């Protein structure tokens, strides 16, 4: 007999000569399969009816106040002043304003994710430090900042810290960086002629570093002694970068912000709002990441560490070669959630006036009214961003997953 079956055939005589006759299908109202399909059909119908009802209500209510459900309004003039972000002026469309918000969200989320991971890693490892003081300090940090709402933290950073900083012209760090209640201004590298050439040279340094790494690894495989391939690779890269820098005539200078009138000019400027939101998000999320890091290191079986010890590896090696690689695999999915949370929490910037997606949408709704379209657009946007982050983390997850484990 081959192939998947169909239903029993009527004329199948059956073996052993027993009187089989045809297999009767049960009455449809008692037939398990029919009921399953029927159940789904009913469910879908009810769902569609419900959705249609909501939609109809929406349309008629919106119509009654003279608006519609189209997205055309996005092309009309916004008239919204936005303090920071990509180039924009209030005469541009709502769509443009929306885009400004989107970029601002990506900015704060991107920098936030990087900083939060770094701080979280440090705090997580500190939580496990044999040094009692470090351990307790990290614990206090985590317990305090995890249990306070992130909105309260952001508001606090902004109103109680940033706005309390000295006015422009006041505080400075070493005369080159300036903190004020309007934000931070720090020196920033600026390219001169020849910088392009230098950049190319630096890029060329990367494959060179790769070659150096491979060479030293081969030597190590041959002779067994440690040959520090990473150090050599880094050294090669730096050598090329520095040599290139000198050869092209030092084409990069630091732009130091200067006080001009009532503002700073030059350098790189971070608005107070951005700084507050960034600080709030980073400190909050890092506390959660710290717990994840700690949990994942603890979750690596004790036996692994013992086996590493028995093999003669010393603590740093145990950590680097055995514990951390396994801990990382455990930590990636929950850290992904934290990244998504950070991105979504950035919408709280509305409380301090940082013009990201959440606050700009809110303004658009207040001004243009079409709340349905705007909320739908915003939800889809955040959904897409979340998806993008999750896809990246999934790729990372897959690349570190154990081979050959059947899940």
């Amino acid at each position, binding site marked *: 007999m081959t192939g998947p079956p169909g239903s029993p055939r009527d004329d199948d005589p059956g073996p052993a000569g027993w009187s089989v006759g045809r297999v009767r299908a049960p009455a449809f109202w008692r037939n398990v399969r029919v009921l399953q399909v029927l159940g789904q059909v009913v469910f879908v119908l009810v769902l569609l009816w419900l959705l249609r009802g909501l939609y109809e209500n929406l349309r008629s209510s919106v119509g009654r106040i003279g608006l519609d459900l189209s997205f055309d309004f996005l092309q009309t003039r916004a008239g919204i002043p936005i303090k920071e972000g990509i180039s924009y002026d209030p005469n541009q469309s709502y769509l443009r304003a929306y885009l400004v918000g989107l970029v601002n969200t990506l900015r704060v989320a991107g920098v936030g994710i990087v900083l939060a991971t770094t701080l979280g890693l440090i705090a997580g490892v500190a939580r496990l430090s044999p040094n009692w003081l470090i351990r307790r300090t990290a614990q206090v940090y985590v317990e305090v900042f995890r249990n306070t709402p992130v909105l309260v933290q952001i508001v606090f950073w902004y109103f*109680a810290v940033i706005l309390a900083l000295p006015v422009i012209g006041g505080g400075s760090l070493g005369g080159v960086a300036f903190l004020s209640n309007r934000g931070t201004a720090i020196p920033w590298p600026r390219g001169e002629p020849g910088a392009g050439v230098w950049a190319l040279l630096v890029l060329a340094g990367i494959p060179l570093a790769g070659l150096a790494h491979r060479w030293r690894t081969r030597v190590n495989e041959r002779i067994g002694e440690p040959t520090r391939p990473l150090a050599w690779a880094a050294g090669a890269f730096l050598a090329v970068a520095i040599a290139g820098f000198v050869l092209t005539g030092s084409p990069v200078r630091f732009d130091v912000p200067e006080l001009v009138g009532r503002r700073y000019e030059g350098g790189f400027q971070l608005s107070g709002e951005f700084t507050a939101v960034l600080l709030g998000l980073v400190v909050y999320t890092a506390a959660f990441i710290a717990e994840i890091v700690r949990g994942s290191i603890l979750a690596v079986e004790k036996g692994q560490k013992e086996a590493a010890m028995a093999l003669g590896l010393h603590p740093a090696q145990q950590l680097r070669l055995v514990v951390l690689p396994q801990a990382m695999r455990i930590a990636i999915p929950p850290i992904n959630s934290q990244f998504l949370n950070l991105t979504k929490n950035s919408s709280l910037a509305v409380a301090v006036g940082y013009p990201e997606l959440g606050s700009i949408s809110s303004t658009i709704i207040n001004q243009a009214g079409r709340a349905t379209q705007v*909320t739908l657009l915003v939800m889809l946007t955040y*959904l897409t961003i979340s998806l993008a982050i999750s896809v990246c983390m999934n790729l990372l997850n897959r690349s570190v997953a154990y081979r050959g484990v059947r899940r």
Partner: protein
Amino acid sequence: MIGPPEGSPRVVLAGGDERAVAIAPAAVPLTPAESLRQNLFSSWWNGALTIGAGLLVGYLGQALLRWALVTADWDVVAANLRLFMIGRFPVAEAWRIWAATYLIAVLAGASWAASGARLRWTPSLIALRAIAAAATLAFLLFLLDGLRIWVLLVGLGAAVGLGVAIGRAGARRLVRPLLIGWAASFPVVIVLLVGFGGVPPQRWGGLVLNLLVAVVGIFASFPVGILLALGRRSALPAIQLASVGLIEFVRGAPLYIWLLFGEFVLPFMLPAGLDLPRIVRAMIVVTLFSSAYVAEIVRGGLQGVHHGQYEAGRALGLSTTRLMGLVVLPQALRNTIPALIGHFISLFKDTSLLAVIGFIDALRIARISPQGVFQGDLKQTLLFAALLFWIVAFSMSRWSQRLERRLGVGER
């Protein structure tokens, strides 16, 4: 040469056996100096770290303490305490809140005692608790004015004590009644607050508003979340797709956007004539948001139930509903209690977003109370609001950790 080394202590076994048995010296407890050495200065790197960290922490710590105790004026908090706690809840009806609090206190005390927990009294814990008690007392003495509130607070302590006594007396037998009690406490509290000429949700405020919205959110999202989780695991594609779609869509957007939805879009979706108050719409949105997360948590719990359980149930002839209700869900929910508590803590913290939508919750009070005489005291009010949130969240998190440890021991 066989036999124990020279000088090792000799023990005479009771049976008269004269063979000496070498006993290792008992572990000598570390003196304070040695303990310090081991924990903080075990190596030069460690020592350097300790000194560096110590200086930093010390500096920040004393700066913070100096500001908090000397520089800052906390009168703004004392003057607005009632606002912080209950917002503009009419004072004449405040007894309702006290009644609800007493009820919860008795339940909490009984639950704690019935679970067999006992306070441990090691020297360090005694010291810690004494300091905490003293600090709290000092803080309260500063904040609270008048005899009445002190009487009410002492009464609260007595209520907890009563609960503990009941719990100790009943122990295991009380588990079921207590569970019913907690489940019933939700509608009872609502009736207490709203019923019989009470105060509708529109007038709630302060910390109580945050608590109530969180509690309503959790209770209401529980059944919805379980349904969504079951739907997501359904073998029927239509139901599974719908569940997944809803869960991912709700989780994909920030709560703030959903609150905007509840504020601006939901009213249009409702049939004309149905006018829900703002706070109710916010609660609906919070419930929806919470359900998606509860669904994911319960789904994880369902996955943890051995598939053999389904088979045994079916072989016994249990119908699907009975199978789910009597066998699968109880196990799934038990597995996920710590995660559910963690979610409740998050939900509670998220209620601070009500401030941004214009509701008068604890955070909003913190923002608006520094006026007039108290102009510029924003730091104090914000810190106090943060403290209120923190106390609730931290206690729940501690409780959850304890629960996790006890459940994880696998008594069953």
